[in-house]
């Protein structure tokens, strides 16, 4: 081989890589897969930067995964003309995000906080890991990272195979679910069809997920796994719970003091999951106390016939068709609560 001949292998690389990437892309699309965005810190930060929009034109949502599935952003924006900034983070406690917004003097807008009791009233560090990571990333984001995010969006918008959570090398290795030694914690793997994420950070279940009970049962199994873990954990001491209420009250008060508004929402769950939640987190001790402590309005799905009847495919989140109905009724309930939810207000 002569010293100049890396041109030939380089051209070979271009051809082979293009062919392989195209083959995978065509294959994934033939399987009915659609574009999904990596819901990591860059996407969260992109939306976090929008909380400074005028408060009459924007409402910020924080919470855990339920509000990400249950709020249909297209329906919301079509009916209200108000921009929904989705900052909820699945599997996490929203209090670090509440604290971040409360400590941001420039945030003076309206905030809806989704309460999933098992996560909201929880001090486990793993549940605060992602919120803290996202908040830190937002505050430390460099101009180079912002530019990378913009370029990444173009690629993610065009290629189905760019799905870090499910199609990357590590995701595929994790999918093997190689058994580990007794006592080693293994994070359960959610099926790809359960976790599709739009650029607006709305999550939805694919039609395949809704068709296939096996996939739904897989997720129900994951909830059972987490529930079993939660049952083994010692109950939270009263002083820790008091501290949580106190911190939420303090942070809500900071936002209100700047002219902002805060509302709590308990989105639907069903079946054994709901039964477990009602037993583990009695309304009087958690939900009612939260509203009483903060003095904020709240919407509990069980209190409104229009939104109390949903059957969640995997007991915890609404399918997209139900999210549309939920959102329509949620807007109506907000209006009844005196919350201005149209851009003209």
């Amino acid at each position, binding site marked *: 081989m002569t010293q100049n001949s890396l041109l030939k292998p380089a051209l070979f690389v271009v051809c082979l890589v293009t062919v392989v990437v195209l083959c995978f892309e065509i294959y994934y699309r033939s399987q009915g897969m659609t574009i999904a965005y990596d819901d990591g810190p860059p996407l969260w930060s992109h939306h976090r930067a929008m909380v400074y929009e005028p408060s009459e034109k924007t409402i910020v949502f924080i919470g855990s995964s339920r509000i990400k599935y249950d709020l249909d952003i297209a329906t919301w924006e079509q009916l209200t003309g108000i921009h929904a900034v989705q900052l909820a983070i699945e599997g996490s406690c929203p209090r670090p995000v509440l604290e971040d917004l409360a400590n941001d003097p420039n945030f003076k807008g309206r905030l809806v906080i989704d309460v999933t009791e098992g996560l909201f009233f929880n001090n486990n560090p793993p549940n605060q890991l992602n919120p803290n990571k996202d908040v830190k990333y937002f505050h430390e984001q460099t101009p180079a990272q912002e530019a990378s995010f913009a370029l990444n969006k173009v*690629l993610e918008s065009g290629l189905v195979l760019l799905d870090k959570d499910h199609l990357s090398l590590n995701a595929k290795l994790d999918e093997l679910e190689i058994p580990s030694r007794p006592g080693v914690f293994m994070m359960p793997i959610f099926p790809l069809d359960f976790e599709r994420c739009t650029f607006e950070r709305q999550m939805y279940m694919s039609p395949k997920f809704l068709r296939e009970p096996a996939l739904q049962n897989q997720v129900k199994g994951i909830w059972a796994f987490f529930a079993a873990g939660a049952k083994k954990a010692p109950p939270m001491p009263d002083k820790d719970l008091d501290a949580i209420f106190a911190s939420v009250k303090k942070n809500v008060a900071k936002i209100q003091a700047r002219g902002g508004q805060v509302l709590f929402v308990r989105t639907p769950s069903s079946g054994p999951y709901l039964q477990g939640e009602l037993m583990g987190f009695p309304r009087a001790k958690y939900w009612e106390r939260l509203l009483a402590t903060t003095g904020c309005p709240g919407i509990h799905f069980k209190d409104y016939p229009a939104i109390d009847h949903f059957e969640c495919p995997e007991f915890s989140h609404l399918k997209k068709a139900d999210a549309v109905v939920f959102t329509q009724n949620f807007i109506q309930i907000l209006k009844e609560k005196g919350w201005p939810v149209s851009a003209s207000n």
Partner: protein
Amino acid sequence: MVFNSYTFIAFFIIILLLHHLPFSWRVKKINLLLASYVFYAAWNPPFILLLWLSTVIDFFVGRALFTEENPHKKKLLLVLSLIGNLGMLCFFKYGTFLLENFVALTNVIGFDFHPAKPSIILPAGISFYTFTTLCYTIDMYKKRSEPVKSMLDFSLFVTFFPHLVAGPIVRPPQLVPQFEAPRKATQQQFFDGLLLLCLGLFMKVVLADGMLSGTADTVFNATQVLPTLDAWIGLFAFSGQIFLDFAGYSTCAIGVALCLGFVLPQNFNYPYAAIGFSDFWKRWHITLSAWLRDYLYIPLGGNRHGKWRTYFSLMVTMLLGGLWHGANWTFVAWGGLHGLYLWIEKFIRDHRKLKGESHQQLLAEYPAHKPWLGFLYAFLTFMLINITWVFFRADTFGKAWHLLGALFGIAAEGQPLLTTLAILKVSVILPIMLLFHWLMRDTKVLEVAHRLSWWSLGLAWSALVLCLIWAQESGSSFIYFQF
């Protein structure tokens, strides 16, 4: 800006286009300089001021040092330059550390002193560009080389984006002459550079970030007692990660510069195939080791003033080399342990010399005539190097002892932590990496690439690129950016 980001790919394409347009050489250099400032400012724009300050001061002080004949004035200029350069480094990198230690000391002797905790942000790459400018100043003082004639060339020497943030640490004679005459990458350089860039990104993105960093983080952040297996796997994971991360960065830097027609010095030469510790330091972060040798070890006396002075110089060099990596006593301990290893090696070498054996000769013969014995020595070196990584990665001595206890089974039986998959990843990657180092220890990756048939190189190169795409990891910082 990091090499493993979409921003860099777009940036690099623009730079390549500009560099190949028919502009004058001066305009091309101005383009490269502006691009380097953009590259740096993409992290934190205000810190560009520090870079300018350092460049301007060292350019003029360097020239004055070279021409000044009065020894007192010359010394004064040198001291001023050292205070300027090292003062900036001390403030930003060691300010908090110095204050914490001062407070601890005053508290120990009975003063109740509790100042507010300073909030100092470390400018990216400050340790690297400070060393780059320092060596110019010292060279000018000692008249080792001619002063750089133009401010543009000097600025580009300090700021040239491939080496700016994490090296290789370049000396003026290595880079400045390359800026003096027009140059463009030959076709061979361009494709060699692209291959190195892909290889470096593969090392960083696929292996260091994708396969090893999670396991290393899990083990080093663990608060519970760890079983011996988990501790060793975590340590091996970090050992692989730190090499693949930093050597990956250097490989990218050399590749990027080569695509533009510039040659940067080699920074890594299969260090885990080193036989002994002096061999390790000739293969690991070569440009830093050479800097420390020429600007610290030799001025301290080197090996010219007897055995004990040599031991002293070695240890001081390694302790300060450790501190260069970070403002923490654990880095000093890391350097100290390397110093101790070098002491023992020197002691054995001196002992053998007394018996008439040439240690260097013996070492050189191992790979050729007794490969397994050589490999065994290299493996022993690797294992001892691993112990030093405990202090490098652990941010407190408590964590370091905790892990050492687990490594050597001193701690009580722990709760398993790592998944089988994590263990498998490390168990597959580390042996392959060690074997690769051993097989490649006397050659260069580009030499091997040029010896392969076009299709086998094409397949291997494609595999690297496909793994990069498949990994879907981007944007994480390189470990050495924090140093």
